[in-house]
């Protein structure tokens, strides 16, 4: 970060050395650090983004990346500002900007948003760079392209697809109220996906210290206050163990057994208002829901990245391999999470339970690390910690090349059947791009667009099993709008896409949360978004 912030940080630290008051940078980014934390912020600050064109949409995207503090951005745009540009772009200064370089004007005004961000204007021609200096483009960490001529876009996409280590590409196409975005990437592993569902507490497969604790507790002779403070986790572990002892070692299986088990929990109450037993009854499903490796995670074990692992494979695959080996041993689960949810209990009982979970999680992590070590796969400790902690939410996305959908008529037909309005809008936008590529100066008619769409899908629209044509009205609606406003970069559409694309860019860069797969279509007449994915 810049020197001025360092000085401010230093003085803040002196003034309040007693307490851990955050520095000015942390205060500035407080509201976003609560979403992606310091690790996400640091990824963002190391990112270098190339944006092709300085259109209203492009500057809207950049605004939402400069504000949260992306490291570097370059606008690549050979155009000078026209009166049309000056009317719809907030990062141009009206008529004062007309005639100047669009890249330079936009970079100047975007840079005002955040001292910590480096902005650069490149007034070269993208086609020239693709021709003479492709390594310039591949040196960025992410490339974003808005409404590029389709021949240029195809070359750009082909270049970035040609090597798995090259940066992802976000394609944006928009006209009037309609738009779409697509992220081209080879593979995108996510360790911290921020899943909604928490990790298993493993009540059905209690680790020895937990089982021991639950069984040793002298529940019968406890005073009433302590009894009302036993954490539900302990109640369930104990009740399950007792149940199994009288049911040949099996947990409750049938509906009747489950009801009986729940009733039994409530019958253990010493007083009617013991909330911990109510919680135990409400959480009883954990007893008969077997903790296993979640389906989405075990699927990852058969990913080619794991099955054909080499010493030079990315760390994520070495970690996955170790995870597979870990979970192939009893109790056939993921490593335990040390996170315990809040539950009715007194402080001592809760903290004790928390300690048991933490200690066990630490032990299992050591086992995991020893597997990694045995495999000869050294991975940074911080990454291993992160990986183990988030094991239940791991994701691995595999993407497609830009244009692969349009090259597959069968896939288009299938999509049209499944997601009619989304696919119709996508087809209309593809048709518009083709027409504009063939003849940039002509205003396309609805007939032109219709013809181009039919060419894309192989002559005619698909039919349903009862013989009805699918997508006709949806297509007419999309075509009509594009014929109305084929070159309109509307301020509201630009702002909407600016938010959407920046959000996806942040997810790609931080490797947190889950980016969208497939073509994400936006219709701001119907005020909807949707995804087309074969």
């Amino acid at each position, binding site marked *: 970060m810049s020197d001025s912030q360092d000085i401010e940080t230093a003085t803040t630290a002196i003034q309040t050395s007693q307490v851990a008051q*955050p520095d000015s940078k942390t205060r500035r980014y*407080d*509201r976003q650090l609560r979403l992606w934390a310091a690790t996400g912020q640091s990824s963002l600050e190391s990112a270098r983004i190339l944006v092709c064109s300085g259109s209203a949409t492009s500057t809207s995207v950049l605004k939402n990346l400069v504000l949260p503090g992306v490291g570097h951005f370059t606008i690549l745009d050979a155009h000078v500002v026209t*009166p049309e540009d000056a*009317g719809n772009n907030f990062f141009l200064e009206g008529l004062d900007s007309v005639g100047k370089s669009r890249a330079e004007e936009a970079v100047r005004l975007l840079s005002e948003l955040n001292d910590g961000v480096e902005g650069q204007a490149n007034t070269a021609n993208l086609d020239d760079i693709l021709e003479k200096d492709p390594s310039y483009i591949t040196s960025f960490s992410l490339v974003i392209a808005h409404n590029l001529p389709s021949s240029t876009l195809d070359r750009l996409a082909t270049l970035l697809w040609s090597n798995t280590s090259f940066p992802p590409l976000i394609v944006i196409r928009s006209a009037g109220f309609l738009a779409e975005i697509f992220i081209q990437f080879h593979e995108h592993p996510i360790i911290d996906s921020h899943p909604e569902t928490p990790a298993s507490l493993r009540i059905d497969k209690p680790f020895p210290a937990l089982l021991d604790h639950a069984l040793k507790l002298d529940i019968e002779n406890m005073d009433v206050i302590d009894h009302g403070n036993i954490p539900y986790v302990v109640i369930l572990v104990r009740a399950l163990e007792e149940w199994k002892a009288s049911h040949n070692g099996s947990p409750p299986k049938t509906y009747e057994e489950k009801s009986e088990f729940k009733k039994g929990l409530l019958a253990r109450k010493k007083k009617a208002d013991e909330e911990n037993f109510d919680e135990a009854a409400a959480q009883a499903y954990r007893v008969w829901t077997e903790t296993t490796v979640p389906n989405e995670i075990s699927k990852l074990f058969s990913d080619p990245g794991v099955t054909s692992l080499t010493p030079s494979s990315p760390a994520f695959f070495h970690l996955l391999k170790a995870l597979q080996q870990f979970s192939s041993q009893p109790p056939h689960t993921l490593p335990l999470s040390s996170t315990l949810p*809040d539950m009715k209990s007194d*402080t001592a009982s809760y903290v004790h339970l928390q300690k048991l979970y933490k200690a066990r999680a630490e032990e299992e992590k050591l086992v995991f690390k020893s597997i990694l070590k045995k495999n000869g796969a050294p991975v940074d400790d911080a990454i291993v910690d992160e990986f183990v902690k988030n094991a239940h939410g791991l994701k691995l996305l595999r993407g497609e090349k830009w244009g692969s959908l349009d090259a597959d008529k069968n896939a288009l037909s299938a999509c049209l059947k499944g997601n009619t309005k989304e696919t119709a809008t996508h087809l209309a936008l593809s048709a518009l791009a083709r027409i504009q590529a063939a003849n940039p100066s002509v205003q396309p008619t609805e007939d032109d667009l219709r013809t181009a769409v039919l060419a894309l899908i192989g002559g005619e629209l698909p039919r349903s099993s009862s013989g009805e044509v699918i997508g006709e009205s949806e297509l007419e609606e999309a075509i009509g709008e594009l014929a109305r406003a084929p070159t309109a970069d509307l*301020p509201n559409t630009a702002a909407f896409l*600016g938010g959407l694309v920046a959000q996806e860019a942040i997810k790609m860069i931080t490797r947190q949360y889950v980016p969208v797969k497939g073509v994400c279509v936006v219709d701001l007449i119907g005020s909807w978004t949707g995804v087309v994915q074969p």
Partner: protein
Amino acid sequence: MAAVNGTPSSGDWPNRYFHVDQILDKPGPRTDPAFSAGPVVKDFLRNQCKILVIGAGGLGCEILANLALTGFKDIHVIDMDTIDISNLNRQFLFRPRDVGKPKANVAAEFVMKRVPGVKVTPYFGKIQDKGEDYYMQFQLVICGLDSVEARRWINATLFQMVDDDNPESTKPLIDGGTEGFRGQARVIIPNMTSCYECSLDMLNKPTAFPICTIANTPRLPEHCIEWASVLEWPRVHGDKKMDTDDPEHIGWLYEVALNRAKNFKIEGVTWSLTQGVVKNIIPAIASTNAIIAASCCNEAFKFATSSAAFLNNYFMMIGTDGVYSYTFEHQRRDDCPVCGGEELAVEIGKEWTVERLIEMLVERQNIQIKKPSLSSANGTKHIYFQAPPQLEAATRPNLEKKVFDLVGDAGDILVTSHSLPFSLNLRVSYV
């Protein structure tokens, strides 16, 4: 350069509206036949339409910029806040040198400087400072607020302004809200769509920690922080008010909470968490605000120009796992106290005291009335009043009495609150 009848208006240059005019010069397949393409609609948008933006924060900054670029020329903005450093990660009309200044004024000035010919009139204050005559001057109202209370107030106020003999008195309200990667935009047209009050039960319930947990059995760092702010602060500082924007106050709370956590062997009290808990901080980012503000402004543009159908009536989106959105027609509630007209039926126990009924009114998702005052027999018989002090003292003994003993079998109760410009008719039955 003064605005005269017709176009062009001040600040315009040839092709300034090249992009927007593609929409305004001809209809599309989904455009209402009443759309009058060309000069008429442009004149209305650029020379006649007056729009109010409530809030100049995360959504407000975006809304003002979008409206100005789409061609709204007469924009008013209300905001009661001043600029804080933590706003700068998303409120892009503000710079570090603006910290401490009123948001409405700085935002208005910036937009006018950046988009020539647009007039933005700021008001640094509360929406409640203004009356019906003020709100009547606008064709549209857009809200970018973070307060449920303020939204309820403006919603009810706009509903009360509706005069059946004057179509101009029906003011569409476009409301946006965000939280982290989630957000929603909706269009409320008084007496046509559901209203803000109809959807109260869709709000997330705020996390509330039971006082006995905080006092006796803390388990989470949050419990220690609540102990510091709810119990220790008043005990140590007496009547001195806690200012959650004062770093010294947060510092004190942090240390007290940290100490308690140490005593109880609880981990995880940090400065950031302390601030988050006591200020009830909601994560906020530029990108979500951009999406939602754009949706709001897009609906305003479509409504003002009739160039395309507007949203009927609710758009919500979640960006954590891919891009998920859902557009639907939110339904009116017949027992909505603002737009429904029917009484709200509640069941209570025969032994319930007035105090217990009040607790329920505060907590129930579809009611949520803070500090309610109660009366019966069409408001003529006082049950309990929060203010003025004499009336509060006079009605206080009723708190202990049973509701049944006060209102009897045909239990109709009128509920009012200082913070809400409407009353709620409860029909009480006993179980």
